[in-house]
Structure formats: C-alpha cells, structure tokens
C-alpha cells in the first residue's frame, strides 16, 4: 500500500499543471499518512521522549504503554471519531466536490479517511494495550512460578 502510493506521488509531481492531477497528489498524500498512522503504531514508529523510558525494564515500559493507551490513545480515537462524524456525514449528504471547477469530485471519500483513521488507530491501540497487559501479566506469572520453586 505505502509502496504504490509514495512512488505514485513522486512520479506525478513531474507533470504539474493540471488541478485534477495536483489534487490527486494531495489525495494520495493524505491517504498514505491517514492510513499509515495505525501501521506506524504497530511498528513502534511514533516518536517518544525516551530520556527516561529507554532505561526502564520491559515491564516498566509495558506499564507506561498500557496506561498511555488506556488514558490517552483510546479516548483520543473515540473523541476524534465522534467529532469527525457529523463533519464527514455532511460531506456525504451533499456528495461534496472540489472547490476548484476542474477538481476531483470525491472530497466526501477523502473526508471518510477522517473516520477510518480513528477506527484503525483504535483497533491497533486496543491490540497494543492487550499486548502490553500480557507482558505485565506474564512477568508477574514468571515471578510467581520462580517463587514457588525456590
């Protein structure tokens, strides 16, 4: 997905001039980053201020990620979805088109990305949070078993 999009963005830019082409570049650009936000979360690509974080144990890191997920990420996705809903629905009801006369006619589709992004991010956020809880739980279980052996 990312591959085709980025390459096309690049190629298209060599032939400037047409508004529709210009807008298609924008569409591609927006699609790439809106769809890739969840993917980047999965790959751990969102930057952190890791002055302290990097020195923590894996369990400590899992704690921070769990709390961050529950307190920040998941509510953010819900709020974004809720805020964007009316905005996108309005766009759909009028089948909104570009404000330029020769522009593309699919603004409502483009805006739909604003709902897809929070949903994918929410799903990935839930997955990450569960993963982190498991890390914490596993470590606790490990400690428990070593305790009984000794």
């Amino acid at each position: 997905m990312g591959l085709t999009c980025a390459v096309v963005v690049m190629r298209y830019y060599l032939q400037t001039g047409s508004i529709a082409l210009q807008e298609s570049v924008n569409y591609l650009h927006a699609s790439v980053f809106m769809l890739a936000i969840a993917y980047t979360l999965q790959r751990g690509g969102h930057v952190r201020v890791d002055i302290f974080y990097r020195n923590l144990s894996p369990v400590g890191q899992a704690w921070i990620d769990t709390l961050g997920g529950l307190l920040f990420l998941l509510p953010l996705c819900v709020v974004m979805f809720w805020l964007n809903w009316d905005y996108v629905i309005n766009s759909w009801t009028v089948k909104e088109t570009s404000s330029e006369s020769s522009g593309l006619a699919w603004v409502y589709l483009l805006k739909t990305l604003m709902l897809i992004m929070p949903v994918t991010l929410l799903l990935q956020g839930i997955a990450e949070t569960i993963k982190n809880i498991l890390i914490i739980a596993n470590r606790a279980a490990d400690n428990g078993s070593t305790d009984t052996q000794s």
Partner: protein
Amino acid sequence: MEYLPLLMFVAICLVLLLGYPVAFSLAGTSLAFALIGLATGHFDAAFLHALPNRIYGTMGNNSLVAVPLFVLMGVMLEKSRIAEDLLHSMSRVFGSVRGGLGLSVVVVGMLLAASTGIVGATVVTMGLMSLPSMLKQGYSPALATGTICATGTLGQIIPPSIALVLLGDILSSAYSQAQLNMGIFTPKTVSIGDLFLGAIIPGLVLVLLYCAYLVFYTRWKPTAAPMADGDGQPIAIGEVVYSLLPPMVLILAVLGSILAGIATPTEAAGVGALGATVLALLRNELTLARLREVVLSTTEVTAMVFMILIGAAVFSLVFRGFGGEEMVESLFAQLPGGVFGATLVVMLIIFLLGFILDFIEITFVVVPIVGPVLLTLGVDPIWLGVMIALNLQTSFLTPPFGFALFYLRGVAPPGVLTSDIYRGVAPFVALQLLLMGVLALWPQLATWLPYTLMR
C-alpha cells in the same frame, strides 16, 4: 483558573517525559484538561468542534506534501549507500590535510543534512558511518564525537530540511494572522521557499565555522587527529566525480529550482525524491527489497509527523479554548525590553524545551503560540524562522540533555566515555552561540538573500 493553560503546558511536558508517544500524549493530556474545563464550565466545547476542519486542512495542505518526498529522498540516499561512498571518497580527497577525515564528515553531513530532518536519525546514521573509521584512524574520541554530533544536527538549518518546511508552513500562517491582528488586510506572505533562502547563508557560515575550528584545532593539537596511515593512495579524479557529483547535482537541482523560482518547495522535493531513486537505480543499489524498505520507512516517518500535527492541533484548540493566547499576549506585554526582551525570552524557552522535545513538537506546539505575538511586535518572519532553527540545533547539542548526544551515545562503542562526548561538543556549542549572536546583530545575514531575490 487564569493560569490553567500554563498548567496544562507544564503537565504536558511532564507527561511527555514518561515516554509515551508524543502525538498521543499531547492530544490525550489536552483532552483530559478539556474534560476538566467542560466539567467546571471554563471551556467551551465549540473549540473542539473545530478539530475536523483542522485535520482536513492538514490533509489538504499542499506545502506539507513536501515532507514525505524529502524523507524519501533522504532515506534513499542513506539506504543505497550513496552517502557512505561519498564519505569514503571525500576522506581520500582530504587525506593529505590534517583533520581531513573530520572535514569530510562535516561536508558529507552538510550534503546529507538536507534530507533527513529528524535529529536522531541523522546523528545515528553519521555515527554508524563515520565514528568507527575516525576512531580507527586515531582521532581523539572527544573530537570525533563532537564533530559527528554537530554535523548530525546541521540538518535543522541547511535547506532543504524538513525542519524548515514545517517551520515555514507554521510561520506563514502565524505571519498572516499577525498582520490581520495589526489591521493589515492585504498581508504580505512568507513562504517555505523564503525560509530556505534565508537559511542558506547562515547555514554555510556555520559549516565554514565548523571547518575552521577543525583545521585550527588539529594544527594546535596534532595528536587529536593523526594523518591517515598508509601511503595515501592517490584517488582518481574519476572516482571523486563518480561519488561526489551525483549527490551534489541532486541537491543543487533541488535548491536551484527553488532559488530560481521554477518550482515550489513541494515540486522540488518531488524532483529530489525521483532524482535520488534514479541515482540509486544507476548504481544498481535499488533492489525491490530495498525499495520496499525505503518506502515503508518513509511512510512510517510521514505518519509519525502528521500524527503529531493532529495531536498538536488538539492541543492548540484546547489551549485557545482556555484563553491561552490572551495569556501569552499579556505575558509578553509585561516583559521588559520590548521586542528584544520578548525575542530573548522566547529563544530561551525554546532552547530549554529543546532538551525534552524534538523540533517537530516545538514547531507545532510552541511556534503557533508565540509566533503571532512576536511577529505582531515587528519581528521579521524569515529571521525568526532561521533563529528558531539555529536555536534548536544548539539546544540539541548542549550537554547534558541534548538529543544528539543521547543518540550518539546509543551507537558509540563503550570505549567512548560520555564525558568525551560532552567535552567534544562544547566548542561546537560555542560556535553555535557565536553565530546566533552574529545573526541577532546583523539580521541581514538571513534576510538579505530572500528579499533581494524575491522582491
């Protein structure tokens, strides 16, 4: 309650230090404050309803399309080993000069600086590429690490850098807002291209300062930088041309087309990205697997940058909803020293924030707050942009918290002491401060070129 926005800002800084991804911490903490505000009746939910429009504005912003393209160009140059080749042949060109390897690191850093804007990435790349060979040649660890850190942060200031793209975008909206505040309804504009032009002279001066320092230091203390051993095999001209010319042409094409007014920065970035790909193809370095790797990492960086933009949008809406802007304005009004005092304070704050935040966060969070106020006071937007970029660069270099130092520490062998890095980087910090002082005294250094060319 009056200081709620300030409290929110402090809370966000603290939350960020925990290490949860910046974009989500920013947005999440702001939402929490908005919730408190809603419950206590200090916050109007209408502000949050502006969010969809902000997000859509980001999606449709044509200047920001330059970001993925420049990232792609940088990653391509790095992964296809064009950069490494360049370093090798440069160091052989400078082989007969004392400190030659150091000089070539600076020059290569300058050429590459353009491409990757994320401080960490550049420092890590430069560190992995050049630190081992510098140490092997007997450079003192302090000199080697200092040079690499300083060079790695050049990416902030040498155009076409992503830092300047983002900064230019934010400043241009801050500038039009400032002029509206002043009652000017036919506002002048400032573009990313203007900022690029403004940064060229200060950037080159900085590189010259680095080089001059290296030359003098290695003369004065020859043991810190031994000559390359071996009989210094002379390098064929063809080889130099082969490795040096293509990246040079690429960067000149990108910058030149902006300078000449042929292309917008976004279009130039497209040319750069395509050019880098062609270069990699010509060298047979572009396998399908590598292309995939390049594009995926470009996608990741892009998504990361834009998620921070969205997070920062949530923050700025909530900040505004709490009356943060009025608060900042009245704070500035109370400052002694007028424009100079205000600028100095802003620079100091940005410098300190540079210890905990990367330039993307500072550009998106701090500049929209202070930018309009300073610009209303009559500060030149181009000068301000260049100063902010320089300032952040200095901040990233300053011990004990500078970002660049941490990243280099991460890739340096254990034999290199952290204190070596601190000692090595100190002179470069001094050079940075010197340049900032000069720029503060003679703003023309930044403003002359863009105003001469553009008007």
